[in-house]
């Protein structure tokens, strides 16, 4: 696969001297052609700044940015083969839906007939044919979202940037637009760079995810890898729900740590290369709520007592108290023949090898 975007040694600070704010530090990133790439992180992590630098609205303080092999730092947004779907949509309020979609092509001085044909094609692509002559103020939020997408896709950019485009939509519409976006990306083959703070959105749509915090990329990989093998506590906490356990190291052998579980049993977990705890010290370990299973009391690796249960429709979250008083959440699929245990019930917990992971703090 060819490289669409190459970012090397990119830094961005705002302000001068001691008051300077480092929005991005030492970003190295390669995004492949046709990839659905997501920048994921909490607000203020620098993901939007990175997007604005790719679009050309901000210049990096240092570092290089190549698009399709061509250095673009110093080029304005109107000189880059990139279009953006803005968080606020930024539809031109005085232009009809069709005029909005055709604006980029008009600026590129395409012939009128071509503009007309592309606008019609884009309207069809986002299923807005009936709304061509409406003003943005006369259509719903979800429809505005589609128009913003069509407008950005119409000039057939090499890269489409999406800045939290779904955050203003309600849950049902958001789900709908998620699959719509995925469909559009597959159909057009355009490289999508998607910015979001919604981890579920990132997991369901992306080919690869970069998890960002405080101006740095903490982890870069496919959704499964990010979810199953988070590199540190922040990533584990940010992506999905996780039980954090503080466990004592009993022994270390061949990259694995033998840990003492609450209640005294032992389990081994692979150690990440970045940490080397000493025997007897405590480390942070995680187990995802759905990767543990309840067993009858007395069996399993750990013993717990049910504190409370929260019903979520498809599953129930059991809030447990382990032997050493650490909390643990267990996600249990609801089945009509298996009622969830009442508060006060004793039960055991078991988990598959590999579910227990040691993390860098």
């Amino acid at each position, binding site marked *: 696969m060819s490289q669409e975007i190459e970012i090397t040694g990119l830094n961005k600070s705002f302000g001068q001297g001691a008051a300077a704010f480092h929005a991005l530090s030492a970003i190295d990133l390669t995004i492949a052609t046709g990839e659905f790439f997501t920048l994921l992180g909490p607000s203020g992590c620098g993901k939007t700044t990175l997007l604005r630098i790719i679009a050309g609205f901000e210049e990096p303080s240092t570092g290089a940015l190549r698009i399709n092999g061509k250095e673009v730092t110093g080029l304005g947004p109107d000189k880059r083969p*990139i279009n953006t779907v803005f968080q606020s949509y930024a539809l031109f309020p005085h232009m009809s839906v069709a005029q909005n979609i055709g604006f980029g092509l008009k600026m590129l001085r395409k012939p009128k007939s071509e503009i007309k044909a592309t606008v019609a094609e884009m309207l069809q692509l986002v299923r807005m044919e009936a709304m061509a002559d409406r003003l943005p103020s006369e259509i719903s939020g979800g429809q505005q979202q589609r128009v913003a997408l069509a407008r950005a896709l119409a000039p057939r950019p090499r890269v489409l940037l999406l800045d939290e485009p779904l955050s203003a939509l309600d849950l049902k519409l958001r789900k709908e637009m998620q699959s719509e976006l995925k469909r559009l990306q597959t159909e057009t083959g355009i490289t999508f760079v998607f910015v979001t703070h919604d981890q579920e959105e990132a997991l369901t749509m992306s080919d690869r995810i970069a998890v960002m915090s405080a101006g740095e990329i903490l982890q870069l990989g496919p959704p499964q890898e990010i979810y199953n093998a988070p590199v540190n506590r922040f990533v584990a906490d940010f992506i999905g729900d996780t039980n954090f356990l503080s466990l004592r190291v009993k022994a270390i052998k061949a990259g694995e740590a033998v840990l003492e579980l609450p209640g005294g049993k032992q389990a081994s977990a692979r150690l990440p290369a970045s940490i080397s705890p000493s025997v007897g010290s405590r480390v942070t370990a995680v187990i995802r709520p759905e990767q543990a299973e309840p067993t009858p009391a007395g069996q399993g690796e750990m013993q717990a007592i049910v504190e409370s249960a929260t019903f979520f429709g498809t599953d129930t979250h059991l809030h447990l108290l382990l032997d050493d008083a650490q909390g643990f959440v267990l996600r249990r699929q609801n089945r009509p023949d298996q009622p969830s245990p009442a508060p006060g019930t004793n039960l055991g917990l078991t988990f598959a090898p590999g579910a227990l992971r040691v993390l860098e703090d």
Partner: protein
Amino acid sequence: MGCAVAKARFSINRLPGFGLIAVATFVMLYLPIIILVVFSFNAGVSQSHWDGFSLRWYQAAFNNSQVRDVSLRSLWLAVTAASFATILATLAALGTTRVGRFPGQTMIYALINQPLMVPEIVTGIALLIFVAAIKVQTGYTGMGYLVAAHTAFCIPFAYLPIRARLETLDHALEAAAADLYASPIQAFRYITLPLMVPGILAGFMLGFVISLDTVVITEFVKSAGQDTLPTYMLGQLRRAVTPEMNAIATLFLALSLMIVTAFFFITRTRGR
């Protein structure tokens, strides 16, 4: 329940005397004007005794060549000054809202709005001295002084609505235009300018009305034979008040009302 909550909330129009003050204020505002308009249709010369309906004073006003001259001069001056003021105010508004913050921004904002704060009589006297000196030096006594003075005086009035309009414009719109391959000039031509139009029209109309209305500035700056409608009326009132003045004032009022109404509709329909 909801009703009880609403009743318990403080509301100024429930205070004793509120209605009385409101009525008195409106009477004070509009009764003199209503009387002026009514007596412009009086058949007699009295301002206090009704002698029957007549349009004779309107006829007299229309046949008065002086009234025609000063009215046309007023309109010409208002259109010219408001046009210049609107162009300059538009540039000023762009310069103060479409760029990053710069040192002295608040200072410039204050300077642009200076004529709103300086008493008009002070500006008038200052202009009188200033213009007199130039007249002596150059010998030029044309309308240029009035155009320049009215333009400068109208700029802040034109500036306020234009700036207000620009401030509500999302910067993302211009970013979106640039993102869609518009050069900065194209982004201005196709996005910023069309969206500014309601503000620009409002600015122009405010400037126009202000120029049409000002007595003090004109009185101190004009040369001989450059009376505008307000200064002419003021001069006439020093002699005798005939209902002809009422008729002229009523027409003037009608023109102002039409402009304000047009202003309201333009800003309302274009303002979305």
